[in-house]
């Protein structure tokens, strides 16, 4: 085992170079991530990521629990976007059962509504903490202030602030509370000018641009070869969004654009492009939410007898098969691979493919020969969540 690339790299460190540990307790690594740097002065020669500090045996747990019981664990994968993760998991189970066509339209629209709200919340964290990494403190407070409204609304719907367990196989935990649509509309009206303010403060800021433009350029072919997805891949200029490619849930009926990096401030695929893609995606999510709201307030209006638990299957026993379900999370492609035997309520094997896992693996490729300060900018632009990376 001593002949691995890692051991070779460490054996070849020269006397003028220094091995430096960044993390696991370091605010700019966004969680318990350890990066081993081989540095020559301020220049980074090599980055070796060490992950696994937050490993909570998700796949092992999923082999011992039913599909419904696993949803809380799925919520804890990407804890900033629990709705999106459980949406993907639930769709996987429904497709294996073959009931994905029977889900009432109102339920599909509520699922998309809460997922998109959660997507905005997740992107707000990415943008706010990115500002802090670069040295801008105010946007962080603004982003958290606005995210608080989203948290309050989702808490109102599900009873929990971050880990919702709201989307269930075959339905929902509860219908939206009375008045949710109106409250959500108010939030949208409040939020639109706030985004313009954020853009003025951060996106077009000269210092911010000089710290991020032309830094950490990720060429498209590299991004694809490393399995990058989500804003990482779109930041490199490719229109690839699973909401459009797979057309799942209510997305085929909704209108939205797929923002891509254009290299406006520097090169296509630099840190600023990835940041801008997230800013634009928030705008698109707001657009999706307003469409959902107008449908939920008109033809899909709540009725007295509407029961979101009416179609919950009594027992979830899919027939023996393999199934890979993928969906677009805020961070990228979240995939669940199920192996079932057709006899039990418990899957034989579950594999979670986290977007952060692949997105982070490209970091040593794009960080050779840069300054240590730029490495901070690159890690922030990847937007990792360790909960889903380590599973």
């Amino acid at each position, binding site marked *: 085992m001593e002949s*691995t690339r890692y051991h070779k790299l460490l054996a070849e460190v020269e006397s003028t170079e220094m091995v430096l540990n960044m993390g696991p307790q370091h605010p700019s690594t966004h969680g318990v991530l350890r990066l081993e740097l081989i540095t020559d002065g301020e220049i980074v020669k090599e980055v070796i990521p060490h992950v*696994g500090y937050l490993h909570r045996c998700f796949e092992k747990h999923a082999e011992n629990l039913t599909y419904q019981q696993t949803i809380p664990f799925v919520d804890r994968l990407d804890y900033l976007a629990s709705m999106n993760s459980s949406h993907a998991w639930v769709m996987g189970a429904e497709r294996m059962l073959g009931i994905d066509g029977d889900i009432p339209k109102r339920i599909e629209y509520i699922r998309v509504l809460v997922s998109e709200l959660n997507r905005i919340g997740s992107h707000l964290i990415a943008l706010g903490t990115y500002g802090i990494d670069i040295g801008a403190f105010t946007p962080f407070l603004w982003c958290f202030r606005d995210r608080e409204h989203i948290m309050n609304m989702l808490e109102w719907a599900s009873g929990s602030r971050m880990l919702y367990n709201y989307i269930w196989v075959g339905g929902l935990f509860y219908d939206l509370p009375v008045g949710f649509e109106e409250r959500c509309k108010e939030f949208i009206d409040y939020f639109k000018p706030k985004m313009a303010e954020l853009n003025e403060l951060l996106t077009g800021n000269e210092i911010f641009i000089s710290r991020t433009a032309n830094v950490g350029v990720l060429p498209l072919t590299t991004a*694809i070869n490393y*399995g990058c997805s989500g804003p990482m891949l779109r930041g490199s200029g490719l229109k690839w969004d699973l909401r459009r490619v797979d057309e799942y849930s209510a997305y085929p009926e909704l209108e939205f654009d797929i923002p891509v990096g254009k290299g406006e401030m520097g090169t296509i695929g630099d840190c600023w492009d990835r940041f801008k893609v997230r800013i634009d995606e928030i705008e698109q999510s707001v657009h999706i939410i307003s469409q959902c709201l107008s449908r939920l307030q008109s033809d899909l209006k709540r009725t007295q007898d509407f029961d979101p638990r009416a179609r919950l299957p009594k027992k979830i026993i899919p027939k023996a098969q*393999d199934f890979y379900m993928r969906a677009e999370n805020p961070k990228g492609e979240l995939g669940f691979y199920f192996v079932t035997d057709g006899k039990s309520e418990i899957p034989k094997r579950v594999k979670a493919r986290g977007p952060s*896992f692949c997105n982070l693996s490209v970091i040593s490729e794009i960080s050779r020969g840069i300054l240590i300060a730029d490495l901070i900018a690159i890690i922030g632009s990847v937007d990792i969540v360790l909960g889903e990376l380590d599973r």
Partner: protein
Amino acid sequence: MTFEEIKSLLIEKFGADVIVGEETTGRQPALIIKPEAIADVCLELRDNEKTWFDFLASLSGVDYGVEEDIFGVVYHLASIPYKTSLTLKVRKYHDRSREELPSFPTVSEVWKTADWHEREAYDLVGIRFENHPDLRRILLPDDWEGYPLRKDYKAQEYYNGIKVD
């Protein structure tokens, strides 16, 4: 390209024995490939302009249970230009002896995604990937004993003096 066309393309290129079997009952059909040929098959599928599977979505190591003692790796390929997907599988009998792990050729040269995913499969299922450049544990500590996602796994009682529950 449809599933059947991909199948005949592979047979034409590598001969009929490259495909050991196929699973077409589920919603996602899968091809079972001869283990020794998997790296070449993947390279062909990536570079052939009729298929262009340039994106490896996921790679999973699977232990198919103690009755059969079969280990496998499942590859989920996606083609960005054609918006298609394909599932490939390799599998092998292995008697679960500790000295030697079940081993398959690495595809990390074809897709860099596989680098970390194969490390994960090695870490959790105990599958070795021949010629992998950096086969170390990734999620668990380097001195962990055993492979937790194996069906016969028993956790060690103590890890560095800490009781394992």
